[in-house]
């Protein structure tokens, strides 16, 4: 059977009533799981695996994949409405999504995010359909030195995230980098900076830091505003849904985010998060009004949302073609593959085309389902921000604590949540940007480890960092990125804001 015939027969598989039902269940569960920051798709899928015994493998896999990309939709809702990103890859969504909600455009933010996710989700599945096999070799070009160069390139985006003061951005970045050194060091197996606390051996949980610094800090700031009488009730501004203007401004960011997301998402490790960071930095740099970013620029929401969803499809490339999981979620999916007796790899496309294409094509349908599920709910969800502040803040604090406790059932994590809430409050009062800190926390571990991995391989030589074409290209990108930031800084005449 030719490729086109195989792809079409995949649609027939995906459209079977039973599979449609499991797809619906998966996308619904995914949205709900994504809404609660602690409940990621990883725990959702691993809880369900034993329950799917006896189901046809394709139905179960379609459902699991639905949970995976459905969670991205749910994450967005929590990020936009209550400033609580549930995963590293939705941190960028909060930067402009939450200010949009504060400006009374919560409905528009959710609609734009859903459209961005749908468009890029669909386009990237097309890319997955066409490019899965050729892209496999692309992912393999990335070894430790290439990862180090990629991390450096991503770090150059810090300037774009830093707001007015470069010095304050640098402070936040360095604090974040320091934070990633806590815990057992991978290369030596020795604990570092754990102060003898066994709970710190695995480092400080990323989610605890994010939820603390975003959600809990937000609550503290609002309590202060209420006590000093500065609190203003949020009013709906303009139509509930997005305006034609907002939609028009989102078109290009969605397209660019989709491309960046898919290709970077193919890379195992932190591909998905890096994709959202690169997309955000790209949009800010291309924007005529970069000063709007961080204050509710719709481009800053549309780009990363699009990149996030496209990266989800991208992460299926190494999983399907090599049996290599690129993220925690795809690792669980690989486990499910093995248990169903399905062996991923290039020959999977030949041996079981109806399974591969059934799974891939179900994602087209799944994305449509998510759009239909999410758009009508916008009206309902968007009203959350118009709740009286006293009720809303209590709600945020409850959701934040419950979901952090749900991750590991650890009371220690709850104390840490409070600590990071205070840290986030201090950042806000001192006007230190939180985004560079979070970026450093996400990238810092890999930045350090990939450097040391490369050095081990080269026996101490630094030449390894320039030995491959990929490395050289990434260094050039990094240099351009820094140069661009300097030019923009000059042009907007903010040198004096260096301090």
């Amino acid at each position: 059977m030719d490729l086109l015939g195989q792809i079409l027969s995949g649609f027939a598989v995906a459209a079977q009533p039973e599979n449609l039902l499991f797809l619906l269940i998966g996308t619904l569960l995914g949205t709900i799981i994504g809404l609660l920051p602690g409940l990621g798709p990883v725990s959702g899928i691993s809880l369900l695996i034993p329950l799917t015994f006896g189901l046809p493998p394709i139905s179960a896999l379609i459902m699991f994949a639905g949970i995976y990309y459905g969670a991205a939709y749910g994450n967005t809702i929590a990020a936009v409405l209550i400033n609580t990103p549930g995963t590293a890859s939705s941190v960028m969504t909060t930067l402009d999504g939450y200010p949009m909600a504060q400006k009374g455009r919560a409905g528009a933010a959710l609609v734009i995010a859903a459209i961005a996710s749908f468009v890029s989700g669909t386009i990237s599945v097309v890319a997955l359909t066409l490019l899965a096999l050729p892209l496999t070799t692309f992912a393999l070009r990335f070894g430790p030195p290439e990862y180090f160069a990629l991390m450096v390139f991503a770090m150059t985006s810090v300037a774009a995230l830093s707001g007015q003061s470069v010095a304050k951005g640098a402070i936040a970045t360095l604090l974040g980098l320091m934070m990633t050194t806590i815990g057992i060091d991978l290369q030596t197996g020795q604990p570092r900076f754990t102060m003898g606390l066994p709970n710190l051996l695995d480092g400080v949980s990323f989610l605890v830091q994010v939820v603390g610094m975003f959600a809990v800090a937000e609550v503290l700031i609002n309590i202060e505003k209420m006590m000093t009488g500065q609190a203003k009730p949020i009013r709906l501004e303009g139509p509930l849904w997005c305006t034609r203007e907002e939609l028009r401004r989102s078109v290009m960011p969605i397209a660019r985010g989709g491309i960046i997301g898919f290709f970077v998402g193919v890379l195992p490790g932190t591909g998905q998060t890096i994709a959202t960071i690169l997309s955000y930095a790209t949009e800010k740099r291309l924007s005529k009004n970069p000063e709007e970013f961080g204050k509710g620029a719709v481009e800053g929401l549309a780009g990363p949302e699009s990149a996030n969803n496209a990266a989800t499809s991208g992460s299926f490339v190494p999983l399907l073609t090599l049996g290599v999981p690129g993220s925690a979620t795809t690792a669980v999916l690989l486990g499910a593959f093995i248990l169903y007796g399905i062996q991923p790899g290039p020959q999977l496309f030949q041996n079981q085309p109806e399974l591969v294409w059934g799974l891939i094509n179900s994602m087209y349908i799944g994305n449509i389902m998510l759009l239909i599920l999410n758009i009508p709910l916008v009206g309902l969800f968007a009203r959350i921000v118009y709740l009286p502040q006293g009720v809303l803040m209590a709600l945020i604090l409850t959701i934040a604590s419950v979901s952090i406790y749900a991750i590991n059932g650890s009371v220690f994590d709850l104390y840490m949540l409070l600590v990071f809430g205070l840290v986030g409050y201090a950042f806000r009062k001192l006007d230190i940007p939180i985004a560079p800190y979070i970026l450093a926390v996400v990238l810092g571990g890999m930045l350090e480890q990939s450097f040391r991995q490369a050095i081990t391989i080269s026996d101490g030589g630094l030449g390894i960092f320039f030995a491959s074409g990929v490395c050289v290209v990434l260094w050039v990108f990094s240099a351009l990125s820094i140069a661009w930031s300097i030019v923009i800084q000059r042009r907007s005449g903010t040198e004096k804001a260096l301090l």
Partner: protein
Amino acid sequence: MAHTGYLTTLSTALLVGGMIVGSAPVLAQWKPTRNVEFIVPLAAGGGTDVTVRHLQAMFQKHKLIPTTMSVVNKPGAASAIGYAYMNQRRGDGHYVSIGMAPLYINALTGKHPLTYKDVTLICNLYAEYTVLYVREASPIKSGKDLAERLRKDPKSVSFGLTALGAGHHLSIAKLATELNQDPRDLRVVVFNSAGEAATAVRGGHIDALVGSAAGTVAQLQAGGIRVLGIAAPKRLEHGALAEIPTWREQGYNVVTVNWRGIVGPAGMSKEQIAYWEDTFERLTKTPEWKALLEKNGWSETFQRSEEFAQFVRDVEAEDSTLLRKLGLIK
């Protein structure tokens, strides 16, 4: 409504009573009377976590215990947090967990003082043997080829793995000592996840990957890799790894076992231990369990409590020698 509830309770009681009378084994007088908590000292979603969730499904399907069972993840501190949590329920048979090498390696390497002596060893369950592979285009053709290269220069091959001092690392350390080389000279690159290490070996960034059987099964069928050896005492009997020669076959006495057993909180009674020994033995007879072993390339190693304790002491003695040679014990 109240009447039906009462009747159900009554009939359950009669049924349970009948079962006790009907099939009373000599020792198993204890049995769980409420929900059993299966503690996974690792995060949700990992290989071992998924295994435990399968065990849970088998328990429910074959009604191996009279009550329900829930799986609880308590990760952290190289599994020590989970065991410490379990030990808060001293002598309570309603808590079990999966026992692994951190139960002695943590104490040896100074990460956490909790050891297998602080918990109740119930039974050994299965073993996963370490597998070593290279990419297909690699100049290293066989286990012997690899060994000869290491004999000449232990730094000539780079190995990717996911944790220092764990079973995978110990297997190459053992190979090095077999070749009269200092295992500290090996070029070891530690990766954050098996997926990242696999990508690096396939892309030719590192030479070889030392990893788990289950992960390698998927890789092997995807193609493009060559498995050089498995650190098992004898060839696996079934599954994709049955074709892989052991290190012993190739002339090197390298056996490292990543064992998985069942443990309970300290102070469990003889009756409780006997109950769980019997229950897990029945589990190992189910077709689902056999299928799980085969798919993941695992070997069944069921041992009852006393034998299991001896086994753990033996591997601890052997591994501590290696860890000392690696300089990981201060």
